[in-house]
């Protein structure tokens, strides 16, 4: 006991502890209830398994030689292994660009050979700017361009979802660029679709202004998105920025994926997006793959990031 009004006697301490305990207990109960409601809401839409499950891998930069990752082929192999051990067979795997570092025939051959190890019915790709350094993507298209249109863009339908793969790495000045032909393709491609068709868009460079000063944006993306605004669910997945980032804009959600090669700085952190060399043992925490699930009736896709560690 004490006479100092600023100190606490035992009874007060017990009382405050009880209030604190009640606050923690109620918060835990509230969290449980919210989780349960969220789980029930999700379960009510689920019939068996998700309608569509796929994996995203990006920016493998096969052929990169540098301190940031002296063995990009090894980390890409780990990424493939991680996808092959998801516990289910993904409906497809998408590589969102920069498959190679310098777009040489040997690098294209190596990455293609490595991706034959993916246990999935389909492997899709879009080119990064590193895949078209000296020939506007000709070598890329000779290896990965079968069945594509224009400069390598395409679309397909799977499990009731319409998927569009775009090429915004050719005709680069500073920002990504789609061009009139591709914008025309998008307009015609979605014209016959109903508004409730879920749309997934793949591109290498973000279709949102993540950091234009570093070229992390696409100059004519607004025109492309204008054709997609009427759809209730549009999900845009990209690579290029070597880090997880997301942004929502009405019914359109953008998700940047990480890399399997080397990290880049956060937007504006330094003068330019140069490869970051992490302390020993930390690299594989920054590298990873992404699982994506679509549950029929949901407006948003479920994403799960997995580090290579």
């Amino acid at each position: 006991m004490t006479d100092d009004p600023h100190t606490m006697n035992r009874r007060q301490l017990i009382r405050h502890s009880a209030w604190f305990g009640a606050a923690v207990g109620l918060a835990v109960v509230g969290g449980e209830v919210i989780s349960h409601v969220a789980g029930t809401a999700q379960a009510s839409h689920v019939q068996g398994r998700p309608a569509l499950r796929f994996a995203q891998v990006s920016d493998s930069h096969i052929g990169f030689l540098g301190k940031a990752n002296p063995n990009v082929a090894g980390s890409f192999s780990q990424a493939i292994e991680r996808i092959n051990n998801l516990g289910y067979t993904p409906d497809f795997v998408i590589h969102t660009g920069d498959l190679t570092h310098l777009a040489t025939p040997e690098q294209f051959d190596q990455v293609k050979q490595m991706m034959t190890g993916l246990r999935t019915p389909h492997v899709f790709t879009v080119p990064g700017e590193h895949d078209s350094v000296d020939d506007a993507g000709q070598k890329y298209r000779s290896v990965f361009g079968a069945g594509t249109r224009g400069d390598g863009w395409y679309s397909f339908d799977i499990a009731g979802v319409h998927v569009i793969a775009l090429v915004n790495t050719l005709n680069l000045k500073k920002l990504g660029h789609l061009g009139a032909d591709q914008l025309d393709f998008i307009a015609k491609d979605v014209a016959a679709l109903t508004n409730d068709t879920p749309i997934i868009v793949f591109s290498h460079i973000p279709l949102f202004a993540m950091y234009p000063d570093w070229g992390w944006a696409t100059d004519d993306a607004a025109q492309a998105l204008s054709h997609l605004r009427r759809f209730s669910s549009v999900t845009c997945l990209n690579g290029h920025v070597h880090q997880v980032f997301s942004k929502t804009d009405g019914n359109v959600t953008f998700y940047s994926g990480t890399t399997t090669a080397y990290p880049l700085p956060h937007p504006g952190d330094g003068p330019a997006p140069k490869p970051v060399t992490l302390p020993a043992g930390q690299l594989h925490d920054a590298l990873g793959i992404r699982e994506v699930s679509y549950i029929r009736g949901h407006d948003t896709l479920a994403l799960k990031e997995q580090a290579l560690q």
Partner: protein
Amino acid sequence: MNYLIRFGIAVTLTISGISHAYLYIHGYQHIPTIGPAFMLQASVSFALALLILLGGPAWLQWAAAVLAGGALIAFALSRTVGLFGFSELGWEPSPHAAISVVAELVTVGLWVVCLVERRRAVAHA
């Protein structure tokens, strides 16, 4: 007066909590870090609201102000430099963003009123 302020803080906390819980249930649960943060914000808001209403000690109101202020800072970061790799535009998602911000501003405002009242009471004592 004091009861009215406590009641007001409890109501605004609940409104902010409902908005966050709704967004968590309707999609935000899938956003890394942000999803769990929304659930935490909602569950702590509900807990504090109930205990403040039941006449809990003053530090519960401080906790409410910190929670509301933190949510406002997180909102500002998500509209500017991003928060845990997440960013949103303007008042999207509408109307939940605007409802939460107004509720949190009122929570902080009521806490300030409560603080001033308490200091005044101490000065007069």
